């Protein structure tokens, strides 16, 4: 018996199937490599390598001129403002829709009275709107709004408002449904209105979870508003895009550093807020 057979043959009966599976996976991925235009040579093409080498070479030292730092402070504040104000718009979009699509808050649901069918039918487009808002990624919304309202923070604000409005609406309604709905049902069945039933039946128990999810989303909005800057929606991202386009490595690395600090800051702040309101 050869050495290879001694190692792989009798001792490991599943070697062959495993090898076959590996070959199969590679065969499946192979066209993918071609479609993705996978070509490591591009990276080592002399002209390309020169540009990139110079670009990376300028990453250090960081750009620390007073003018640039002041500009960065402005864009950082702008990013935070876009995230915060965008969340307000998202809540303006999400809260009414959440209240509307939450089945447990529906009065017409209770009995086969007037509006039973109408209520069910009207909830469908609202659900569809929520799905549409959140299924289109925020950066695509940003791209669309940049063309509608021009470059700058307004586009980012609206993009976060719509995309996150869809998410908030869906998750709010899920949070409301997943809690104990009996108090609400009792209130509705004894004749109270939808808002009263919401504020006295659901609000007290659901509030911490609603707040904590909103704060978490704010944290995501900070990150998203940086990213959206790349398509011209203002803030730190737009600055990073400009610096990259000019191949100014020092500025890029400084902005990256500030971005990382901002993410840590948002993280800490959101953890703190959730602890305070829990």
């Amino acid at each position, binding site marked *: 018996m050869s050495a290879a057979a001694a190692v792989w043959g009798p001792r490991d009966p599943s070697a062959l199937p495993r090898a076959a599976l590996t070959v199969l996976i590679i065969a499946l991925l192979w066209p993918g490599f071609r479609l993705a235009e996978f070509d490591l040579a591009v990276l080592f093409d002399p002209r390309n390598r020169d540009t*990139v080498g110079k670009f990376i070479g300028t990453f250090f030292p960081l750009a620390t001129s007073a003018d640039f730092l002041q500009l960065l402070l402005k864009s950082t504040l702008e990013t935070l403002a876009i995230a915060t104000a965008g969340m307000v718009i998202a809540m303006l979009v999400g809260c009414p829709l959440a209240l509307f699509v939450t089945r447990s808050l529906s009065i017409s649901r209770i009995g086969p009275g007037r509006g039973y069918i109408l209520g069910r039918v009207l909830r469908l487009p609202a659900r569809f709107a929520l799905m549409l808002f959140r299924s289109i990624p925020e950066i695509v919304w940003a791209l669309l709004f940049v063309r509608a309202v021009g470059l700058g923070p307004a586009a980012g604000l609206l993009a976060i408002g719509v995309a996150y409005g869809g998410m908030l609406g869906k998750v709010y309604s899920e949070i409301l449904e997943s809690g104990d709905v009996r108090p609400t049902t009792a209130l509705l069945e004894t004749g109270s209105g939808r808002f009263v039933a919401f504020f006295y039946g659901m609000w007290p128990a659901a509030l911490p979870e609603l707040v904590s999810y909103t704060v978490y989303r704010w944290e995501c909005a900070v990150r998203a508003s940086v990213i959206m800057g790349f398509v011209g929606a203002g803030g730190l991202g737009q600055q990073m895009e400009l610096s990259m386009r000019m191949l100014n490595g020092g500025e890029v690395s400084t902005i990256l550093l500030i971005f*990382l600090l901002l993410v840590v800051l948002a993280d800490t702040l959101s953890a703190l807020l959730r602890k305070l309101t829990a």
Partner: protein
Amino acid sequence: MRPMHWAVIAALASAVWASFAYLSLDLGHLLTTEAQALMWNYVVSFFPPDLSGEYLVQIGQGTLETIAISAVGTALAAVFGMLLALPASGRYGTVARAVARLVLNFLRSIPELVWAALMVIAAGLGPFAGTLALAWHTTGVIGRLFAETLENAPAEPVQALQLSGCRPSLAFLYGTMPNVLPQFVAYSLYRWEINIRMAAILGVVGAGGLGQMLYFSLSLFHQQQAMTVILAMLVLVVLVDTASAWLRRAMTGG
């Protein structure tokens, strides 16, 4: 606790006020009839979507490209992640562990889109840049998770093999791997799902796939074609969601 709540609410309210004030937006301007008419025209210009056969073929290619970017990016990330997870799980000492973790954290904390913008500079416009971008970021995410899985894997099988005279490398392959492989596969597939969604939008900075088509069509004011791309993105996301939910149910036997 009550005064604390009021303090938090006051702080939040002032933060919101400050944000709107800082941006000094003229949102009222958006509500004028003139602006609304413009907006309405803009919305209408997206309909009907361009469903001509020729363009649908291009969309199909873009979709395939998107899937290819995500699959190759995730596969590369699984390999690199595994390679970095070995030192990051502390197999080769504390120094190697700290260094590997630092690298993983760095890769992970830079978002895919920023990687994509950087890779477009390094590899030129096109899907290759997107593939590399996804590979870098996902390596960071997957590597950290693999490292944690390796650290939490039971030590007894490896010890048993080594005590009976097995080489460390073989003890790892036959003692640790069978325990951690299912988790590796499951997590890589999960990241692939996320990356399909990501690959669809990375193109807005020039990294190939559907995103690049969207960016082009919007830049050329071909809104109807842009609408088709958006629809394709939606279909792709819904399909991926459905497939993954179905697979999950099938695999957990539920």
